[in-house]
Each structure stands twice: as C-alpha cells, then as structure tokens.
C-alpha cells in the first residue's frame, strides 16, 4: 500500500481548519470577513477534492488515495483513509454542497454568523472523514462527531420546536450507535485485534454472528437513511432546521446510512444480507408507497420534501438488496442525484421562506406571477423530483427498476408506483404554490431571486440536467468497485 497520498487528509482538514479560523471572526464587524473566509474555505475544500476525480483509476476496485498512519498502537487503531468507486463521489458531493450552503446563508443568517459558518465547514470535514475512513474506529469517531455540528445547527438556528427535534434525533441515533460499536468490538476480537474494515470484509463468520452483526449495523444505518419505520425524526428535524441544515441533512447525511449498508452490512455479513434481503426490500417498498402517500397530504413544504426524501431513499436500499449491478449502481446514482435534487428543493423552499417566513403551502399561490425566474427553477426541480427523464432523478430510479424486474416482477411493480406518487406530490405542490392567481399580499410583494440565489440554483440545475443526459461518467467510476462488491457478497462466509 502506498502512503504517499495526502489528498483525502486535505479534504478532511482544509474545511475543518477553515471552520476554526472562521470561529475566531466572531465579532459583529467581522461578519463580512467571516463569510468571505468561509466561502474561500469551502471552495478550497472542493478544489482539494478535485484530484480524487481526476486521478481516480476507474479500473481498480482497491482503495485509492490510501493513507495509513499508526494512531493508537496499543489497540491497533490507525488513521487510515482511502476511497473506492463507492465512496469517492460522496466526498466530492459533500465538498460541493458545502459551498452551496455557505453561499445560501449569505444574507439570510445574521445571528452568530461565524459559528454558523464554522459549524458547516467543520461538519463538511467530518463527513468527508466518514466516507474516507477505512479504519472502523476512525469511521465511528467521524460518524458520531459529525452529529455535533448538526445538533448545534438545528438547536441554535432552528425553529421553535428545535429541542424536541434534536432530542428525537438523539434518541433514534443513540441506540443504533451503541449497537454498531458493540459489533465493531466483536469484529475486533474475531480478527485478532484489527480495526481495518477490509479485514472485516475477509473474516469468516457463522450465520448467527452475521445476523447479529447485520442487525447491529442495521440499527445504526437504517435510522440514518432513514428507513421505514424509524423515519419520523427526519420530517421534524427538517422542519426545525435552517435551510442550510436541511440541505446537508437531505443531501449528505442520509447518504451516510446507505453508504454504511454497502461498506459494512453487505460485505461483512453477506450470508445474513442475502437472508435478510426480503426484509430489507419489504421495508424499502413500504417506504416508496406508504411514505409517498404520506407526502401527498403534507401541508408544510419542508415536511413534504422530507417525506419525499424518505421515499426516494427507499429506492436506494431497494437497489442495494437486489444484489445485481443495475440495482446497486442505480442506488448509488440515486444517492448522488438525490443529493442535487433535495438540496435544490430545500434551497427553493428557503428562498420562499426567507421572503414570507412561512413553509405552509397554503400561504402561497401564484408565485410565478411575481417570481418567474424562481418558478422556472422550482418547476424544473419538481420535475426532477418526480423522476422526469433527462434529469438525474430518472437515472437511478430507472436503473433500480430494471434491476428489480430481474429479481421479481412485483418488486418492480410496487416500486414503479413512484412514477405516479412522485409526480402527484411534487406537481400538486407546484400547482398550489407556483401557479394560479396571486393568492395574497405576501405573494404580491415578492421579489424574484437575486444573482446569488440564481447562480446557486443554476449550478444545481445544470448538474441535474447533465447527470440526466449523460450519467455515464458517474457510473464509470462505480463499475469496478460495485462488481467487486457483488462478487464478494456472492461468496458465502460460512465455513
């Protein structure tokens, strides 16, 4: 293994250091300075991540850009980093999204500006750590630490019921994390003292052990995704979170749960994964249909998009547990696409909320009359959210549906209802918010998006369209790693 690379470390520490710098600019007069430093820091964070894309070897399934330093020798814990075709894109997605949230908060956040920006920058670094860590303890530390800034973001800049939301999230997460830790320690023992995730992939395990390990990780990751029925924290968290918090929550943190399934559950416990595939698929399909219907009746735009996220993430977990190329790659594509689209949807809601201070659908109507540019983007993203071909929203769902059809007609049948449900809740909201006569004086006095808002939405729109028209560059990165994973998972670990 080479140890010469330092790119992943940069993607983790550049934002964190930038965040710490911003923390020092906490005086009232230093607000513009704090914003500038934060923006530069986040852009720098993306720039240092670009070499991952450029230098990535699509033909290799091994970890790349590997770094490995001994950290706590007594317990054989390493500062070990590396990315493969499964995780690399998420480091980029996260670094990119951080720029958006910093830019989106520009004039909106006026309270405790430096702390707000610092939270996002530090969280960005920690999340990159989650995706890059190849040492289980390092992963666990990043995984837990990343929650702290999110708690602060919701707790300080959040809405009126922020404490309830935070506590709910905490309750959900706590149990899962502890079980995961127990599983890691068990694995540490059976591998004779290793915290290397790759070692865990290789270690033979009986079916009982596998099942317990699977369930322990499941407890942790299912909450994150979130899968039905442990999803109810998400709508509350979204509703209370400020716009930037919602964006990161939907675009990035949900992906960590799904990533966990690919990195831990499936390769460490392949036999249990196969045995429990029916269970996972059932939960995923319930998410698609049940949550799709629930989304339909939401009166709060953020809740609606939150439920829509859960429904879309159902496609991800469905795809993974089909154990075929279309399913797993489709799931990964869906994760990235959902990163763009959910970010865009929450940013759009943020644009309206900043002006009217209401998230209720009924507070709007006829927004297109006063905000035509905004309406263009809102309709585009709603269409992407309902999986219109030529937008990224279609690609992943289509691939997962193809994969599902290979396994079982009814999986595809049930999942395809998203065509109708997704369009129904997305476009019904558009009808009530965007179209129609001007509903009230708030809407009458709306000003259209400014250059800053416009450029944020335009970048996302271009990405959504590009990925919809030409998804090949994204899937090319995944192929070899996904194939290797599927091969690995196909071999029984019971001996």
């Amino acid at each position: 293994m080479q140890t010469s690379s330092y790119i992943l470390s940069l993607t983790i520490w550049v934002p964190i250091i930038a965040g710490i710098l911003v923390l020092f600019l906490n005086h009232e007069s230093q607000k513009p300075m704090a914003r500038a430093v934060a923006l530069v820091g986040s852009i720098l964070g993306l720039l240092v991540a670009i070499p991952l894309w450029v230098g990535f070897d699509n033909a290799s399934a091994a970890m790349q850009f590997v770094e490995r330093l001994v950290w706590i020798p007594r317990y054989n814990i390493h500062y070990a980093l590396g990315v493969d075709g499964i995780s690399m894109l998420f480091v980029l997605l996260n670094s990119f999204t951080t720029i958006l949230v910093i830019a989106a908060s520009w004039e909106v956040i006026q309270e405790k500006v430096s702390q707000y920006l610092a939270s996002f920058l530090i969280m960005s670094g920690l999340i990159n750590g989650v995706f890059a860590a190849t040492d289980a303890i390092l992963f666990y530390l990043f995984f837990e630490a990343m929650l702290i800034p999110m708690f602060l973001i919701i707790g300080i800049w959040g809405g009126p019921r922020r404490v309830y939301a935070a506590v709910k999230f905490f309750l959900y997460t706590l149990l899962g994390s502890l079980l995961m830790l127990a599983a890691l320690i068990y694995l540490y023992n059976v591998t004779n003292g290793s915290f290397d995730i790759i070692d865990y992939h290789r270690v033979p395990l009986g079916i009982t052990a596998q099942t317990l390990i699977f369930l322990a990780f499941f407890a942790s990751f299912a909450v994150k995704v979130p899968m039905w029925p442990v999803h109810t924290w998400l709508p509350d968290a979204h509703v209370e979170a400020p716009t930037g918090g919602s964006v990161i929550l939907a675009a990035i943190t949900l992906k960590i749960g799904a990533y966990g399934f690919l990195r831990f559950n499936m390769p460490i416990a392949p036999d249990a994964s196969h045995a429990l595939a029916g269970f996972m698929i059932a939960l995923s399909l319930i998410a698609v249909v049940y949550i799709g219907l629930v989304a339909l009746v939401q009166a709060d735009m953020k809740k609606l998009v939150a439920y829509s996220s859960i429904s879309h993430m159902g496609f991800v977990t469905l795809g993974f547990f089909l154990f075929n190329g279309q399913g797993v790659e489709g799931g990964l594509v869906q994760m990235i696409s959902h990163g763009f689209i959910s970010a865009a949807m929450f940013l759009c809601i943020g644009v309206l909320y900043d002006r009217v201070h209401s998230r209720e659908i009924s507070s709007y109507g006829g927004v297109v009359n006063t905000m035509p540019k905004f309406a263009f983007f809102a309709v585009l993203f709603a269409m992407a959210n309902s999986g219109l071909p030529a937008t990224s929203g279609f690609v992943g769902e289509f691939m997962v549906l193809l994969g599902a059809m290979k396994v079982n007609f009814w999986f595809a049948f049930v999942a395809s209802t998203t065509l109708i449900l997704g369009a129904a809740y997305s476009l019904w909201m558009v009808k009530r918010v965007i179209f129609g006569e001007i509903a009230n004086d708030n809407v009458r006095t709306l000003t259209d998006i400014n250059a800053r808002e416009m450029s944020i939405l335009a970048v996302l729109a271009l990405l959504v369209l590009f990925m919809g028209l030409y998804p090949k560059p994204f899937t090319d990165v995944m192929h070899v790693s996904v194939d290797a994973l599927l091969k690995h998972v196909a071999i029984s670990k019971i001996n």
Partner: protein
Amino acid sequence: MIENKLALLAIPLLPLIGALLAGFLGNGFAKPVGRAFAHSVTILGIAAAFVLSLFVFQDVSAGKTFNGSVYTWLVTGGIKLEVGFLIDSLTATMMLVVTFVSLMVHVYTIGYMKDDDGYTRFFAYISLFTFAMLMLVMSNNFLQLFFGWEAVGLVSYLLIGFWYKRPTAIKANLKAFLVNRVGDFGFLLGIGLIFAYFGTLDYRETFALAQNFKETIIEPIPGWQWSLITAICIGLFIGAMGKSAQFPLHVWLPDSMEGPTPISALIHAATMVTAGIFMVARMSPLFEMSETALSFVLIIGAITALFMGFLGIVQNDIKRVVAYSTLSQLGYMTVALGVSAYSVAIFHLMTHAFFKALLFLGAGSVIMGMHHNQDMRYMGGAWRYMKITWITSLIGSLALIGTPFFSGFYSKDSIIEAVKHASIPGAGIAYFAVVAGVFVTAFYSFRMYFLVFHGKERYDDLHADKHGHDGHDDHADHADHEHHGLAKGEKPHESPWVVTLPLVLLAIPSVFIGLYTIQPMLFGEFFKGVITIYPTHDSLAGLRSHFTSWAGMAVHGFQTVPFWFAAAGVALAWYFYMKRPDIPAAIKQKFSAVHTLLENKYYLDTFNEWAFAAGARKLGSALWKFGDVTIIDGIMVNGTAKVIGWFSGVARVVQSGYLYTYAFWMILGVFVLLSLVFLKIQ
C-alpha cells in the same frame, strides 16, 4: 444525407436550439424585437428541420436506412444503454408529419398569440416540443423512446397550463400529467420486462431476441400464467393508452383544451397523441407474436372510437367537439393496430394529422374571429365573414367524415375494410363500432359545421344570456365568457394571413395526401422490412386484392355502407340544426338521462376524482395520522422518551439547558465508553 449522423442530429437539435434561444433571450430585448427574434429563430429551426426531413424522406424512399448510436448514455451490469437513431420509412413519415405540422403551427401562432404576454415563452415551448417529439420518433431504443415520451408529456403539461392563472388550466395540466403517468407505469414495466429477459433495450436486438422467447411463460402470481410477450405488449400498450388517450385513460385529453389552440392542433391532435399509435406500429414484431395483446388493443380501440364519438355530440364548446373527435379517431387508429393493419394505422395517423390540425386551427381562427368566444351556441353564419376559414374548415370536415377522394376517406375506409376481413377475437364488435362511428362522426362534425358557419347569427345572444347564465355549461371556459366575445352588434372578422396561410397549406394535403400515398403505403413496398405482419393476421389482403387505383377505390366508395352512414349523419345534422332546432331540444328533454350521462362523460371523471384523487389523499392522511403520528411517534418514540425521561430525572444535575454542555457530555460519553471497552479488551 441519411449516412451523415451530424445532419440527422441537426434535425432534432435545431428546434431545440431555437427553443433555448427564444426561451432565454426572447425576453432580453425590447418587447417587439424580442418577439420577432423568438418567432424568427424558432421558425428558422423548424423550417430547417423540415427541409432536412424531406431529404431524409427522399433517401428512405430510395431504400436507404440508418440505425446507429449517437452516444452511450451509460453502461450498467455490462449492458450498454445508448441514445441513437433508427431512420426508416416509418420514422421518416413521422418526421415529415411532425416538422410540417409544427411549422404550420409556428406560423399560425404569430397571429394567434399576438396579444399574449407569454408570446416568446410559447414559441420556446412549441419548439421544445418538436425537439422531444423528433427524439421520440427517431429513437432506436426503448430508453430514448421513454425519454421522448416523457419529454413531450412535460411540454404538454407546460402548454396546457400555459395560462397559469386559470384554475381550470392548472388543474387540467396536473391531471394530464398524472393520467399519463398511470400509462407510463405500464410502459415502464413493459420496458423493464424487455430488459430483464432480453438484456437489451435496442429495438433491433429486442425484435431478434424475442423470437427465442415466444414460448416463455411468466407467473407473476403462482398459478396465473402469462406469456412473456403478451405481458410486455400489454405493458407497452398501457403506455400508449395514456399518451394516445384511449379509454379509460382518455380523461385528460378533453381537459387539455385549456391550452392555447395552436398546441391543441400540434400536440393534442396531430403529433403527441399519436405517439402511442406510432409506438405500437414500431413494435409490430412484438405485437404480432401475441394475439391476446392484439385483441386487447382492438377492444380498447373500438370502445374509444365509438363511445368518445357520442360525447362529441353534446359538446357546445367548439374545441371540445374537435377534441372528442380526436379521441374517436385515435380509437380508429388503435383498431387498425389491433387487426394488424399497422400501415393503415400510420396512414390514418398521417391523414388525420393534416385534417385534424386543420380543423383545430380553423376552430382557433373562428375563436379569434368571435373574440375568444368558444361557445357554438353564440356563433352561426360565420361563412359570410370568414371565407377562408369557412372553406378550409369544410374541407377538413369532409376529410374527417371520409368523403370519397378526400384523404380521410382512404385511410378510414381502409381501416373499416381491414376490420371487416380480420379474424382476431373482437373483430366483430370492432367492425360494428367503426361503422357506427362513421355515422356519429359525420353527425357531430356537421353539427359543429352548421352551428358555426351557417344558420342564424347568434352573436348577440351571448349578451342576453350572460346574466341568466345557468352555470350548467361545465365545458366552456368561464373566464373566457366573462371577458370575451363579440361586442353588441359587432360581426366576426377573418383572421390575418399568418393564420389563414397555414389553413390553406394544411387543406391541400387534407384533400390530396390520401389518394397520392395510399398505393405505396398500404399495398406497395414502402413499409417492407419495417412493419411485420404474420400471414395469418394479414387483414389487408381483401382490400389489396380489390384495389386497382385511388380513383377506383373512391368511386367504389360511393356504393359502400360507410358512405351512406356518413351521408345520413350529415343530413341528420342539417335537419336538426338548420331546419328543425326544436327536435334536438325535444330529444334532450325526452332522453334526459342519456343526455346527462353524456354531459357527465359517463361519470368517469367523477369516479376518478372520488376513487383515486380523494382516495389517495384519504389513505395518505390515514397512514400519516395513524401510522406515523399515533403508532410510531406516539407509542414507540415518545413512549421510549417518557421511560428514559423517568430515569433521567436522576441525572438532571447535568442538564444545564445549554446546547454546548449537551455536546460536551456526548463527547465525554463516547470517550468513556471507548475507554471502558478497551480496558476490558486488555
């Protein structure tokens, strides 16, 4: 030409470029400049696409074809999904129809939309539509087909809701999109089955591989056996039922008349709604393998052809009459598909595109002349004031009812003949439906024609009725009635040349295209190797053996039952609406139950509204309130929280209420846990 991939690519891309330029730059100039820019740039793009299509058609007629990929969309699990073109006689025909009608509609729009604030936006949309439609017909694979399929649906959505302030318009466009999505649900499952079993989405490969799966049985439910090919075909056809508005997924099309008239002509008559017909014809190698699927197609088509025609009789809104007529004609095309007369379906698609676009644009011209009154009860005698519109509309109507020598005669008569000779289950019922449909078509078409162009001038009745408006007129656009219509004593006027020129240019093929093309399209080699028909399904054999020339067919046409049915329909319409208007009123009184049934469109909308729209919302509410709020949050989450809260009463000391202390305790907790664990391991 056809070997040149760049030139082929230019055909869909030029309209796209036009759309982007008009859409993004059209509002960047002063208003008149921006408008001129928008319509010039889009018309230029469409005109170029039309000319290029002509060259392609010439090459195809000479026997050349093209089948190749443009770029690889993605590779997954070792299977390549590509964007590519298949250009053969079927594609080339569609390309010509699409670009020609689109060009006419673009020109027409200059006049029709001249007072509208959304002028540039409208041009951007219709050019975008043309791009999407061309991608659909030029595709060589199911993926791109679905792309085009959904993209035309998107533009249709945008255009139905073009006047986004009207509540009826934004309801109609949502409905159109969702009903189409129901069809796409089946469509996607069909595509999924093809992918799962054949491992490809390429047309040619699929058709070749399908032969190996002739006997394959799938069992979606144990004991319920389906032929794979039948399942695929029915799935695909459900998609066609949505897009081509076949019963019971037709409900969106009448409401789509909320959109401006030019798009009703282009999208909801001539091109987009025929996408389903085109698709089934393209898939003829698959459909031929399944008699069950063909029968299903046939029955659905027959129901649509006849029962949608009935609804045309009771409409008072001029556009609605044409809309129901379109539904009925789409039913005819579907019937043709069902009896394996694919070439006839495409032939009728083509003639219909011309005469129906003509009728719609004619109706639009009338609406302009009447100052945006669409209610035929307040028209009449317009022939005096709108000579070109009058003559061209008459030509369109004659073509529609199948008058010998007109284009519609050749295509409709061929359909009837094909059904007559077909042996597939359901052909008997279908024959009855299409013959009876001829009478119905003639009746409603000339009811409209007489009410609009002849008889008493009833323009002033609008004002008399305005106050006593009974509100029962559920079809007409109330917004229009309130703001529009001729002023008292004012007369209609003929439309400007940009409007009448397309009418004339469409009237020419409405008359001549049938007699000119019937021989090569139906009996010649034109579709050889493109459309597959099993010898046992060859329903055209009878007609082929009798066919001598177009003139002979037309002369013979005067002696057939359908002709007399049509003549009777016209005569009855004349008698009822010119001579004795009291009779239809009396019938309406006497058979009020039937009339109410028809006026309420067989109560299908009411049912859908109740069962699906309200049903889904109720179910969603129930799942949310009971599942999420009561069970999961109420019992599981908050219950747990209460238990924990009881325990943590002890630990209240550490609760300061500051978030940073919580964060601190959390980190500390993790640290302690880790330490404990490691000590134990040691």
